[in-house]
């Protein structure tokens, strides 16, 4: 058991730090949930990719450095410590790419991953439907077989990044009247500007169009954009969902950096005693999350599956993130009400944490049933 990094890992950290120091914009980019900000963040992705920093853990063939999980964690620590921009390509990198690595064809990977790595193609996710949220298997959008491909129809919602993104991926019902609702689903990718697609932006609490409704009317998707076997989409997607809740959605570096900034804010505000416990808990929580992740990564490298433990991770970070940002707003005093401080948009973003990527209620059910072995109830 040790926490020491190798000399090579130290050199990698130093190289990342130095690159970030030279490249991170000195003033924050505009919010990525605006048209202007989206473009600026896309350009930043290209800048990262130019020096192979956008997907460090991917194979070199697709734009990465094949650097492994530990260096990815190191990179993320440096990335957020450098206050580098949010990653507009995260849906693709964290959700779609792992699915392609696990279930895609070589042709799909070669075609899709490099433009994802460079920010040329930005991906939106298209999971939820109005009547299928936590109960994702109940979705009804259809994929109907046609010559050389499929025709998609129906409605998707809470499609994050969709207002400005290029393409999307999701599950569609390709067989009706199956024995169980999660059978007969197919995992497809489609173009958000294809004929038949209508994107209706939806504004988040702070008014920014962070997601969209997608209306699909006989949208053609060629066979080459099916991932895995038709009808096996649930299985294909669940490996993505497990990943989504796992190590990569929120890297420890993000919270270590946020806790540092919170501690700094507390000191700037005169180190008020009444807030000390909450600031200390934020600092401690970031360290706990880092070490929990190191342990999970070590197990993963030993070949152990992560599985339901990802649910522990999801509940922890999402509640931690809100508590940290609430503490920051409270430290700001009357300024904490303002919507344009450095803490305002991250606070609004954090509020979504317990809802998306599997609500925390669903996660607690999973923890109780799969990790603790409690009986399934009717909830």
């Amino acid at each position, binding site marked *: 058991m040790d926490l020491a990094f190798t000399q090579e890992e130290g050199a990698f950290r130093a190289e990342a730090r130095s690159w970030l120091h030279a490249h991170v914009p000195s003033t924050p980019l505009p919010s990525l949930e605006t048209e202007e900000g989206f473009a600026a963040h896309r350009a930043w992705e290209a800048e990262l990719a130019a020096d192979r920093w956008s997907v460090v853990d991917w194979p070199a063939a697709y734009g990465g450095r094949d650097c492994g999980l530990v260096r990815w964690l190191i990179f993320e620590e440096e990335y957020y410590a450098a206050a580098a921009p949010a990653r507009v390509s995260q849906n693709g990198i964290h959700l779609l790419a792992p699915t392609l690595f696990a279930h895609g064809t070589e042709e799909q990977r070669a075609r899709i991953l490099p433009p994802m790595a460079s920010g040329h193609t930005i991906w939106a996710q298209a999971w*939820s439907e109005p*009547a299928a*949220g*936590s*109960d994702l298997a*109940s979705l009804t959008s259809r994929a109907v077989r046609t010559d050389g491909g499929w025709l998609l129809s129906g409605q998707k*919602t*809470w499609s994050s990044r969709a207002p400005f993104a290029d393409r999307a991926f999701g599950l569609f019902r390709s067989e009706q009247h199956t024995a169980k609702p999660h059978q007969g689903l197919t995992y497809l990718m489609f173009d958000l500007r294809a004929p038949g697609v209508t994107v209706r932006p*939806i*504004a*988040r*609490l*702070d*008014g920014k169009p962070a*997601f969209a409704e997608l209306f699909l009317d006989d949208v053609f998707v060629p066979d080459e954009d099916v991932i895995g076997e038709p009808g096996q989409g649930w299985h294909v997607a669940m490996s993505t969902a497990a990943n989504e809740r796992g190590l990569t959605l929120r890297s420890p570096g993000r919270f270590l950096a946020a806790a540092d900034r919170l501690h700094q804010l507390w000191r700037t505000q005169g180190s*008020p005693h*009444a*807030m000390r416990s909450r600031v200390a808990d934020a600092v401690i929580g970031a360290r706990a999350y880092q070490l929990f992740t190191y342990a999970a990564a070590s197990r993963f490298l030993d070949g152990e599956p992560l599985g339901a433990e990802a649910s522990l991770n999801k509940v922890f970070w999402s509640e931690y993130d809100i508590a940290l940002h609430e503490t920051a*707003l*409270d430290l700001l*005093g*009357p300024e*904490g*009400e*303002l*919507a*344009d401080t450095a803490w*305002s948009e991250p*606070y*609004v973003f954090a*509020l*979504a944490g*317990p*809802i*998306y990527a599997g*609500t*925390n*209620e669903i996660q*607690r059910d999973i923890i109780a049933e799969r990790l603790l072995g409690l009986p399934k109830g*009717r*909830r």
Partner: protein
Amino acid sequence: MRFLLDPEQHAFAASLNGLLTAADTPSVIRDWSRGDHSGGRALWSRIAEAGVFALAVPEEYDGLGARPVELAVAFVELGRYAVPGPLVETVAAAALFTEPALAKRFLPSLAAGGTMATLAPMDSQYALDGDAATTHLSLTPDGLRLAPGPATPARPSLDPARRLTPLLPGGELLSPTPPTEQALTWARLATAAQALGVGEALLDRTVAYVRQRTQFGVPIGSFQAVKHRLADTKIALEFARPLVFGAALTMSPADVAAAKVTACEAAYAAARTALQLHGAIGYTAECDLSLWLTKARALRGAWGSPDECRDVVLSARA
């Protein structure tokens, strides 16, 4: 001791409730957020006609006398409908105009709804809705000033219906020794009552939502985790309510501070629960729920943070 609203107070609440139900406040709020104050001004007049501002004005200045209990009744309803505008600030202004000359000059119009006053507290550079207000007041180290107007631009609040405006410096010195503490007490009482109404609206809307939203073939309101979270919301609001009305009866700064922190924490907790149980739909600006969610957060810090209020409670016992 009879710690229940009288029939007249119930009737007053019901009539305000009817007025506000008819007013379609969500569209008024959305217009107000965009800087279109016409609907909000019209609503302001109707609220004034119902006598709300007169409850903070002595009878000799065309008011109904200082009636904090009725004022609290009114502000619960204003919060329940998330009515926009410097409502609390106008009440606080009324409490500042105790000197006869000022009272005569400002109060009749304030009671009648002709004055929409805003006020920058001592510890803040911002006044609420200065772009809409007709009277801009600053509490400065010199005393109470009539500011020349709002400075632009306003800063946005996390609650889009609250526009925080710096005030232009200078202006007429109205009083070197305004009754600041009294105004703060009235402001906190009104904020506490407003927060209680906001919290109750959040609970009601969420209960209605979880009864009709189904997942896994049943209403999500039948899941025990959902039920217990809403039960906790109900408990917090039901124990905040008597503090608000008890404070209105005593008007002691400590009682009012206790009501403020408790009602605002209960409302913010209700907001967190409402958001979680609505799921993604609750996170959108287009869902009316957002009008209450964001207000709950803003009121929590307005006119005294939770920690400041707790300090007042303990200091009063020292």
